[in-house]
């Protein structure tokens, strides 16, 4: 149903009748019982991004990843054939965590030919095969071939490494990503590899932080200081001009504040540091001199709304992975890893083309610093929201048309949990 006073065709939410326009419950973000269901229904069934191929530069490169949400940890490795593989990080002998550093809770990375267990010295090849057992002759009816590392489904898409913890994923990775997300195919991610990576432990349900970054209704208020004082107003809002959903995924695109890209604003509408360094929140003013990053050569699916001007496309890939591609030739990713029903571990990476000189590196630094500070404001709301929701003083909340993304995430989450419960019931019946 369209909003009162608003033509139906102007309502983004109205284009997806399944979403409805009613009040929304966030019980899914405060209930320990619901979290237990999400672990099974979502995180053990969806394809999960765990990193990029640049983290595995050569044969034998590996990194570990803790997945508290699935009560496991994985090793991601490039084997001697160059193939990227994933294994549960558990020794077949007595269940010890196989690869770790400092403490078993710390993630690690490196290069090796074999993984050796610190407990009894069992060794595994990069293909997961058990290669060495100390005093093998003392084991009973024992064949090393029967005890490889437990492998995890692992696929690479556009350089992003995804795993799936299901015994047999119900969809291939390309099927899961669907046409809207696959619209990113052809973006030169492999040329945009200068990485700035951050971690934070946050006091909210994972979806509450996803919500904070997937609508721009909050921008003119929470981030009022992005405008110089003379332009700030708590009365005039900001609206992103394009929204789309496809299966469990969402997309929002922006075209700049009041349709003007940041770098084209008059100087008196910027902070002094921006023209001094010629960079800012939206990136370096000058696009990199890389033909593949020229807008004419970018995949059409990057800006499916055909916005002009276009600034950012924000791809929300279910369940917990986000890619924001900026028109100025860089991109960022977020990953939200639940650690309980009301906490999560969050990761953010900025990616720029490799700096060719100090000025480029300095411009990247300014963008990274300004962008992080905006993110700190978004994160600053989280524990307050979690506390408010957990009070259960209110059980239903309104969402505006441009918060369609928030509505969609909670709907999809509910759908996946219900689908899991139906399948479980069918198995038991």
């Amino acid at each position, binding site marked *: 149903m369209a909003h009162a006073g608003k033509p139906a065709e102007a309502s983004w939410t109205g284009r997806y009748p399944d979403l409805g326009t009613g009040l929304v419950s966030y019980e899914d973000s405060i209930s320990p019982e619901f979290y237990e269901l999400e672990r099974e229904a979502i995180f053990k069934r969806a394809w999960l991004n765990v990193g990029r191929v640049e983290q595995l530069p050569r044969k034998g490169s590996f990194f570990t990843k803790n997945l508290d949400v699935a009560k496991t940890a994985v090793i991601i490795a490039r084997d001697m054939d160059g193939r990227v593989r994933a294994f549960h990080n558990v020794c077949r002998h007595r269940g010890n965590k196989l690869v770790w550093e400092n403490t078993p809770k710390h993630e690690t990375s490196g290069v090796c030919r074999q993984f050796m267990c610190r407990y009894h010295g069992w060794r595994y090849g990069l293909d997961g095969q058990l290669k060495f057992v100390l005093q093998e002759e003392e084991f009973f009816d024992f064949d090393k071939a029967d005890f490889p590392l437990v492998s995890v489904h692992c696929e690479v898409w556009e350089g992003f490494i995804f795993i799936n913890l299901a015994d047999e994923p119900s969809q291939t990775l390309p099927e899961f990503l669907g046409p809207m997300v696959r619209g990113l195919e052809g973006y030169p991610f492999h040329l945009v590899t200068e990485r700035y990576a951050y971690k934070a432990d946050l*006091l909210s349900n994972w979806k509450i932080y996803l919500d904070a970054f997937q609508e721009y209704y909050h921008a003119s208020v929470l981030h009022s200081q992005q405008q110089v004082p003379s332009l700030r107003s708590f009365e005039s809002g900001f609206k992103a001009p394009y929204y789309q959903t496809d299966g469990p995924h969402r997309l929002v695109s922006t075209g700049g504040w009041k349709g003007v890209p940041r770098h084209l604003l008059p100087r008196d509408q910027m902070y002094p*540091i921006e023209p001094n360094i010629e960079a800012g929140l939206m990136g370096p003013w000058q696009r990199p001199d890389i033909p593949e990053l020229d807008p004419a050569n970018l995949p059409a699916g990057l800006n499916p709304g055909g916005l002009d001007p276009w600034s950012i496309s924000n791809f929300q890939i279910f369940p917990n992975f986000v890619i924001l591609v900026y028109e100025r030739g860089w991109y960022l990713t977020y990953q939200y890893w639940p650690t309980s029903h009301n906490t999560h571990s969050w990761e953010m990476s900025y990616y720029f083309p490799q700096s060719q000189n100090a*000025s480029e590196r300095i411009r990247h630094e300014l963008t990274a610093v300004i962008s992080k500070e905006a993110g700190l404001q978004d994160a600053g709301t989280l524990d307050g929201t979690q506390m408010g929701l957990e009070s259960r003083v209110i059980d239903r909340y309104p969402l505006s048309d441009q918060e369609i993304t928030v509505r969609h995430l909670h709907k999809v989450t509910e759908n996946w949990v219900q689908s899991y419960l139906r399948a479980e019931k069918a198995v038991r019946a």
Partner: protein
Amino acid sequence: MSDPSGGPLLPAEFADLEPFARRWCLATEPARYAERLNSTMADMEAFYDAAFGRVRDAMAYLDRFPLQELSATQENLLHLVYSLIMVSLPVEVWHQPRVIDSGTAYFDRYLEPAP
């Protein structure tokens, strides 16, 4: 910060910024962010006022050398520019060391390019 000889920390062309070098030539973002939180606005304004007008000169100077082959003093100058960026937001935007409305949030930058 690199100080092999006990001599100047910055290239001779930037001797005017030497009084700020010992404090602000910091190689990593976590170190720069921590120094910002440990600083008064007066500390940061003094550094900003001295360094802001020299940023373009520093960029033009450093661009004459390959980024991966900077000398110790050149690298210090680069780090000083990063610190100027770090204090520019408190000075220009927030008027306090911490980001307004950031609550309890803290992001740890654990990986970054060098230099």
